[in-house]
């Protein structure tokens, strides 16, 4: 049995399932001021009367780290940044305790300027005085050569709780994002650790020793133990949970749009043959652009509670929400009210929705029913327009080779999978406006928790080899090895896949069903003078997001019409 738990803004959804079907489904109110209580209440409710010995895993998706960042309730941390020539690193400042130091590495990982130990020691002294417990260390091109970050880390000594080195948080290039990512990891670390220590504690008091996993923004999970080094990977896992819930409904050989329709927003994502499309760099959260792997998503201000207004004689819906629908005690009409008027939303007090829409209809000089149709159509058109925009955005990504230019995959969605609160009401109206097939994700109220439960463990590895310097390295994996004559792309790819396998198993993947793939493999001849001096090789491999093996029967039972 598996438990999936997704803490949302208003509800916490929990499911208990096994490979034959969904066993139990629970919804509890989220207490934003005490997420621990919400999680615990959910776990209590779902395990009541269940033989907990048969539970194999629990996957949690919480808003803990996301809220801490958005509400800026993170503790002060120290950042030490070494840039060398280029854009002034002051532009990438993340926090007050942000110290730029000397030392630089170039694009091939060669040292240009050494580290000055006394600068780091002075910074450490100041950090200690100011009561700082976590420090992030980031160098430009540290993913090509992490020596400076490691050296600075050593110089900081043992007087801090935790030190985060930039090259460990991601293998990708992008100094500014590496700074932000390292900062966020350092900043959410204590909140994350305290929270999950408490969860584990309470579970063990209950006599439950369960392997906890956490959902990440890329729609994959990782073991709790692995998360202490990368706590920021848990931000924005909520949207990923819903998308993974929709994956079950997607056909293997077609592209689909996922639409999670909520009260305030609709969140869209793209599935390419049951694998969600990933963002090229990383997630954006608040003012931070990061290297945290995430799904490519688009969020628009259009949902069941979007405000309906008349502006200069034109009907507008959204992008804001002023409160609940009039039907549910609000003061501004919404698409939810319109759906009630049309009769697609069952409610005993439809007259209230009619009364809510009446002033606008009167001003426009049209019947209330006509206005209701127009409101729903406006909302649906905005959602479909966003779907087109997201598809165009994914297809419009620049490519750097003639081969990709000619052969590059173009996303062509054939279906729209809708989920979220008002999903079934909107589905029928979306269908009228698009040639794509619109399907409601089964168990759409709990799809997010199901998605969290069934997500597989994901991770990626980037490997860089330079045969002139005779070294292959994957700094994020602490891997650095001399290479022999004849080393080439094939050897590099094999090495990267080997590293990925080890990493995936450490993070909790199933060794028997490890779906690894090569995302990037490039080899360049380096020519100096008129001779080839070596090869420059770049390989990126990943376990792509998807569902775990062995739950096809469950998925079939979910897709079957409810009894």
């Amino acid at each position, binding site marked *: 049995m598996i438990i999936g738990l997704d803490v949302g803004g208003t509800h916490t959804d929990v499911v208990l399932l096994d490979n034959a079907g969904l066993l139990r489904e629970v919804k509890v109110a989220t207490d934003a001021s005490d997420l621990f209580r919400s999680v615990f209440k959910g776990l209590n409710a779902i395990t009541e009367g269940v033989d907990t010995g048969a539970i194999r895993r629990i996957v949690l998706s919480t808003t803990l780290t996301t809220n801490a960042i958005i509400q800026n309730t993170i503790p002060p941390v120290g950042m030490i940044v070494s840039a060398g020539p280029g854009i002034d690193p002051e532009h990438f400042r993340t926090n007050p305790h942000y110290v730029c130091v000397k030392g630089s590495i170039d*694009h091939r990982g060669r040292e240009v300027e050494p580290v000055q130990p006394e600068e780091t020691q002075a910074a450490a002294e100041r950090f200690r005085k100011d009561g700082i417990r976590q420090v992030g260390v980031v160098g430009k091109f540290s993913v090509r050569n992490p020596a400076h970050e490691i050296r600075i880390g050593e110089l900081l000594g043992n007087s801090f709780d935790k030190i985060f080195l930039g090259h460990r948080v991601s293998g990708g290039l992008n100094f500014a994002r590496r700074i932000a990512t390292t900062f966020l990891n350092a900043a959410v670390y204590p909140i994350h650790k305290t929270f999950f220590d408490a969860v584990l504690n309470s579970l063990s008091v209950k006599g439950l020793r369960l392997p906890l996993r956490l959902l990440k923004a890329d729609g994959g999970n990782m073991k709790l133990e692995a998360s202490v080094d990368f706590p920021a990977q848990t931000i924005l896992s909520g949207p990923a949970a819903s998308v993974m819930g929709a994956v079950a409904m997607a056909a293997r050989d077609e592209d689909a749009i996922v639409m999670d329709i909520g009260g305030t927003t609709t969140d869209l994502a793209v599935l390419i043959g049951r694998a969600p499309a990933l963002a090229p760099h990383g997630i954006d959260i608040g003012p931070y652009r990061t290297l945290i792997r995430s799904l490519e998503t688009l969020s628009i201000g259009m949902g069941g509670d979007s405000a309906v207004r008349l502006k200069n004689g034109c009907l507008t819906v959204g992008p804001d929400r002023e409160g609940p629908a009039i039907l549910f005690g609000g003061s501004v009409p919404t698409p939810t009210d319109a759906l009630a008027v049309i009769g697609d939303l069952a409610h005993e007090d439809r007259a209230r929705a009619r009364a809510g829409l009446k002033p606008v209809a009167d001003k426009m000089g049209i019947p209330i029913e006509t206005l209701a149709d127009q409101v729903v159509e406006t909302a649906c058109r905005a959602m479909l327009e966003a779907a087109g925009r997201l598809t165009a955005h994914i297809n419009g990504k620049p490519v750097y080779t003639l081969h990709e230019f000619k052969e590059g995959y173009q996303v062509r969605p054939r279906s729209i999978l809708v989920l979220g609160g008002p999903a079934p009401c909107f589905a029928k109206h979306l269908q009228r406006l698009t040639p794509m097939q619109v399907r409601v994700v089964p168990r759409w109220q709990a799809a997010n928790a199901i998605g969290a439960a069934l997500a597989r463990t994901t991770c990626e590895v980037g490997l860089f080899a330079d045969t002139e310097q005779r070294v292959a390295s994957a700094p994020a994996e602490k891997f650095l090895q001399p290479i022999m004559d004849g080393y080439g792309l094939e050897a590099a790819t094999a090495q990267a896949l080997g590293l990925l396998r080890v990493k995936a198993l450490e993070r909790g993947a199933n060794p028997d069903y490890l779906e690894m793939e090569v995302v990037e493999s490039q080899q360049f001849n380096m020519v100096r003078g008129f001779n080839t001096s070596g090869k420059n090789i770049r390989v990126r491999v990943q376990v792509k997001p998807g569902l775990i093996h062995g739950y096809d029967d469950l998925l079939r039972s979910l897709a079957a019409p409810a009894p």
Partner: protein
Amino acid sequence: MLCAQKKVGLVFFPAYDWAISPNHPEREERLLYTQDQILEEGLFDIAGVVELKPDPVVPADIQRVHFCVPDVWSIATESHFISAGGAKTVGIAVSERQVDKGFALVRPPGHHAMRVAHGSRGFCNINIEAVMIEFLRCQYGVDRVAIVDTDCHHGDGTQDIYWHDPDTLFISLHQDGRTLYPGSGFPGELGGPNAVGYTLNVPLPPHTTEEGFLHVIRSAVRPILDDFKPQLIVNSAGQDNHYTDPITNMNFSAQGYAELTSLLNADIAVLEGGYSIEGALPYVNLGIVLAMAGLDYSKVREPDYDRCQIRQSEAVTDAVKSVSDLILAGWQGRNQLREKMLEKRQSHRRTRRIYYDTDGFSESQQEEITACDTCGGALKIDSTSDRGAHILAVHIPRKACPRCQETGHGWYDDASVRRFDQVFLQDRPGDKYHVKKK
């Protein structure tokens, strides 16, 4: 977060699977380290710097500029269609005001490609700037354009294409042709009779630093541009003046390039040469983009940069000053010179041999242009290559007067396919391209 003062549109197309040959300077690896640097610096995350995906050009775009022998597909490969398309994409974004400025960071380059193209010369097959400019003229009604070519090599292809066009001011700054390929670009090369003075050449002595180069920009190029008042300034932005470039002898730095970019204030930059792929390009390109965006570039410098090592000698400084003055005088005296040339004859001819170094063969040309004081003049080129092709190419310029249009059509109609393998007509007023064959 960094926010650009000016919105910059960037096409980056490094063509990682295309090379002239494995050890050639124009090879797969060329923009690899530039990509590493711009990715690591997070250039595309700067608010106001947008990466655009190029749309390839279509044959009609190329035929607006070139006479490709025997046809477009024999001269331009797919990579050329995309690199020219990169320039065109940037040009469209600027023309439609989606961005304030644009930079096509693409390869292969194009400024040695001339109007008649039998093959590849100076690593260039088609002139990507000219293809872009003529598209923008056709589509957006752009008229007066200035091209400032700051590649270390003389932009002889661009010069050839605009030799007779008084609406295109072409200024090339380059290492003295007596010391570097293609061996042309002297101050006396001022353009054809109908456009004399609208081609300007500034040969600079070897070892000129940015000090000399920026002097020319400040004291000659900028005043001339202000006088000409172009609607569009295009910079053929070669990066081979750098002190580490392996095939030239100049002494520029990344700082110099950034300053040049902000002084010149071009609307569109298009990458040309530049073969110090590790030591120069990553830093130079970063500096150029920051300068275009109006951002601080003061901390951009090469790891091995040493100002004292590359200081310019006094002899160089003096030589630069005098050539700069000469150019300014050439510009100011252009009208008298034009009158002198026009009163002599009804038409002008010149005979040339053109060497295609990349492909290793030669072409001979006999060119005839009608003298005209109202338009660029009808142009006829009789061209034979060593490879055996003999063609006649007729160009009727964009704003041709009725008389020159008639002359051009007459030339084309009268040319016999028994004498030539192919006869071409570039009818710019009609935006048409015709070919007659045996």
